[in-house]
């Protein structure tokens, strides 16, 4: 694939442009038939679920969002709802829309290549396959009552108790006063973004003139937010950290 940028190998005597009728239309037709057959068989074999009538007084445990949102629901374990449920999805949507304007690498336009755009491929695959798809799979199959993790062979015990021994990051570092903790947490969060941004700008200082300040700034901030989610997950799972930054208005 490395030399895909070079003109595609041309088959001798075969024109590069083909008539849509019949060559594309027949493919679409075939695809359509296969899809409809698959859908029909699936619908004959498996019935859509219908549980008991809705009952506002009976909360099921676990209550799960539709499967395609379970990645976000899982982020709720690590973040408060204002972030996991509102800000994160908004940033995902805006961030996705910005991709064509932030990725100014002219290579790899219209063909598969890994070597010509390694970073872009890595970042997208990480976000999509790990943070979105893997979390969904975990949410569907491994999250049981109380949103606790259960392995597939384990019984979903509704009374399972997991000791909550989480502490906030400033506390773990010995900061005991409320205001002190707020300052410490703020310094950590803002410092993370500040230092990350400075490092990136320093590393890419030669590209700054071509790429432009705003572009580079948005790029690194979005990347840092994505990584912050990963860091928070690691802090929680590995070090039992609840919040990094506690303020009267919001907690991170």
């Amino acid at each position, binding site marked *: 694939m490395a030399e895909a940028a070079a003109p595609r190998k041309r088959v001798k005597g075969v024109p590069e442009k083909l008539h*849509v009728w019949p060559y594309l239309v027949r493919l679409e037709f075939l695809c359509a038939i296969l899809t409809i057959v698959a859908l029909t068989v699936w619908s004959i074999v498996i019935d859509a679920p219908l549980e008991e009538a809705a009952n506002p007084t009976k909360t099921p445990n676990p209550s799960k969002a539709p499967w395609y949102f379970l990645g976000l629901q899982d982020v709720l374990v690590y973040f408060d709802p204002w972030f996991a449920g509102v800000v994160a999805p908004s940033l995902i949507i805006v961030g996705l829309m910005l991709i064509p304007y932030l990725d100014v690498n002219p290579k790899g336009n219209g063909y598969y290549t890994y070597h010509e755009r390694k970073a872009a491929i890595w970042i997208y695959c990480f976000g999509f396959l790990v943070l979105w798809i893997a979390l969904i799979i975990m949410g569907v199959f491994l999250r049981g009552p109380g949103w606790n993790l259960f392995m597939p062979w384990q019984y979903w015990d509704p009374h399972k108790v997991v000791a909550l021994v989480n502490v906030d990051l400033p506390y773990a570092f010995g900061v005991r006063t409320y205001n002190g903790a707020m300052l410490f947490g703020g310094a950590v969060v803002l410092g993370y973004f500040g230092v990350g941004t400075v490092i990136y700008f320093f590393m890419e200082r030669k590209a700054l003139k071509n790429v432009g300040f705003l572009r580079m700034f948005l790029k690194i901030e979005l990347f840092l937010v994505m990584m912050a989610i990963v860091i928070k997950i690691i802090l929680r799972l590995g070090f039992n950290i609840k919040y990094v930054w506690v303020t009267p208005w919001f907690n991170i």
Partner: protein
Amino acid sequence: MANNSPQIPKVAELMDKIKSGKIFSEIAKEITESQIWTSAFRHGYADTPRNRVLQIASNVWLHLHPVKIQRHALRIKFTWCMGGITFLLFLSTVVTGVILMFYYRPVGEYAYYDMKYLQYDVPFGMLMRNMHRWAAHAMVITVWLHMFRVFLTGSYKPPREFNWVIGVFLVTFTLLLSFTGYLLPWDQLAMWAVTVGTNMARATPFLGNEGPFAEFIGATPRYDVRAMLIGGSVVGPPALLRFYVLHCIFIPLVAGALMIVHFWRIRKDGGISGPL
């Protein structure tokens, strides 16, 4: 025995025809030259370049296509056919959804029993419901795969940036379509999944009653974005009606309009992307 010998070359001849595929053109000839066929169709289709172009250009449905296409764009390995399958699944949900609408009333007292009625009494009701639901789920998956392939081929790069933006709107509306439909069976699964989902709106900064800075706006449980979305402070009959209208009218219209723009843009941006 003696009778059999002339038969053998005939069988061999037949096998040859089958193997070489000639048998098909012979059958086609038998049919298209029959009296019934010729009485219905006045003339045949001559496979000329001009006719190939006309087939596309003078057909209202097919003329979404260009008349000619790059060879590589035909390869399943390139497009995975995912955009097209997404569109087909969308159309399937439209057709089956309209049939479901004949039987379903979005009213707290009726909705669940209409589902039961659909499943047990309406001819093919269960099948229609299944097809609608599975096509919707499948569409979510295929639209993600489509997006993934568009990313991997770098097809969002100039001049296709804006079609990618339209695409992000489309994937968002696809999820919202699925989500609003999820409530309509009005069973436990539906009500609680939508409760979990819409509870998030409570936490919207400024606009949700539990969100950061809510006190600056004066948001309360009965007066915030969530209450506006579901028509109350819990997922009840007003939410059902709202989701029904959004699901059957508003979102499909917007998504349909965006799809039209999406397809138009593919052509205006120079057709399927490719190495140049």
